[in-house]
């Protein structure tokens, strides 16, 4: 069977779940800790899947997220564009890092993403997030290995079931 077709369904399901998790109501004190679910899924997608996620798709997913969360139109689009671009750019290196180093790379990506968001908000005169929102990348890093293993596993399972 063709490998190019593999696991798109799994990834789309993961993406939908990530979007729903982004909308899940949390207690006020947990709100700043919410990891960037969609960002994490797109990092995985760009890093592990041979067929690249087109930048245009990242842009559209970002716009969808902007509409859903009522954030500034284009904010998440910008953030996801940069995320996907950077992962694709450094993919050959990041991919063969040992897991802990890869988690650090993910942290760097997520922190960079925060900086970009903060920067665009300041330029446009939007409200600036509180310091607690810098904790979200740390949560993202802690979750990364599990997301990585989980998605790898799901893709493998779906491929095997297809073969049978």
């Amino acid at each position, binding site marked *: 069977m063709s490998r190019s077709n593999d696991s798109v369904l799994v990834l789309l399901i993961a993406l939908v779940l990530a979007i729903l998790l982004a909308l899940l109501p949390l207690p006020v004190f947990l709100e700043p800790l919410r990891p960037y679910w969609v960002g994490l899924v797109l990092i995985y997608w760009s890093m592990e899947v041979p*067929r690249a996620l087109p930048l245009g798709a990242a842009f559209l997913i970002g716009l969808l997220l902007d509409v859903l969360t009522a*954030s500034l139109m284009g904010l998440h689009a910008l953030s996801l564009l940069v995320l*996907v*671009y950077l992962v694709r750019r450094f993919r050959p290196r990041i991919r063969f890092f040992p897991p802990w180093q890869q988690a650090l790379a993910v942290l760097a990506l997520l922190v960079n993403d925060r900086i970009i968001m903060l920067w*665009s908000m300041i330029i446009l005169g939007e409200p600036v997030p509180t310091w607690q929102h810098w904790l979200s990348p740390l949560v993202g890093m802690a979750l990364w290995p599990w997301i990585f293993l989980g998605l790898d596993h799901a893709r493998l399972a779906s491929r095997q079931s297809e073969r049978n």
Partner: protein
Amino acid sequence: MRIDSAVNNPSLAQGRPSTARLMGYLLLAGLLMLLDQRGEFVPRIRAFAEQLVTPVYHVAEAPAEALRGISTYSRSYDTVVEQNEVLREQLLGQQGDMQRLAALQEENRRLRALLDATKGRQVTFRFAELVQVSLDPYSHQVLIDRGADDGVFAGQAVIDGLGVMGQVESVTGGQARVRLISDPEHAIPVQILRTGQRTVALGTGEAERLNLPNLPDQSDVREGDMLVSSGLGERFPAGFPVAEVTRVDRETGEAFMSVDARPLAALDRGLEVLLVQPGQGMTGPDTKSAVAAADPGAELAAESGAGTSVDDSDPAAETASAPMSDAEPQAEALQDPAAELPGEDQ
């Protein structure tokens, strides 16, 4: 729209994405943000897109709804009985208040007639629930489960049991997005209840703080002062509690004081809200002499959701005057008739 053509060109799939394309998309995103921030053009696209994504909210809401359902269902009989008793007591107390209010309204109406002041406008409420999804924490907006189909319109004032919450920003068929008063882009005209002085309360981006930047240095304002909506601007009906002053900072040499206030509404933890329906019965003859105060007790007994009618109404006298509710303190109306004039600045 043309997206990367990895299918047509397999070599692209493995390689680096093109920087030119990135720049193009980045520019587009930047342009969108700029336009959205200025409120040009993009809000219309967003309103349309919101129509399309409404089902997503229903799915996203499901887990929270289920959780709430379980917690309601599993509540013990005793707790429910206890709660019922408390609510009954509360209702009784409030019915008593309402009876007094009817008398006060009548009195207020007569005093206003004596002063030839502006007339109150009828206000009714409609119940709505928050949609249990979490929006961007920086945007200070919430979703409610009533939309254009229920007569909700952009600009409509939203309150909860404690105070003013915000105003409707956009509506779709079955839902509406509400901008809270804590949003940095939001400003609400208020009045200090004790002195009658008018000013504007701006959102700060923090749920627990509003800012009043326009109070001159010599104004009379203290910590603990209650701020009510002044009714200027015609968005929010007058007399609803908005916030309580928490900090007054007089800096010598500054023309304006720095005053902070804490919103009274449960902005970040409420579940139910009330939509303020503006005056009905605006047509019809002048009923100045008619004693038309509805019986509020009977109104209260009506089903929730049907809305409670507060305020007697005089359909006349709406020309360019601020809508004044009778919930406003009467003493002030007596002492300070000048405060009835809209548009003055203090």
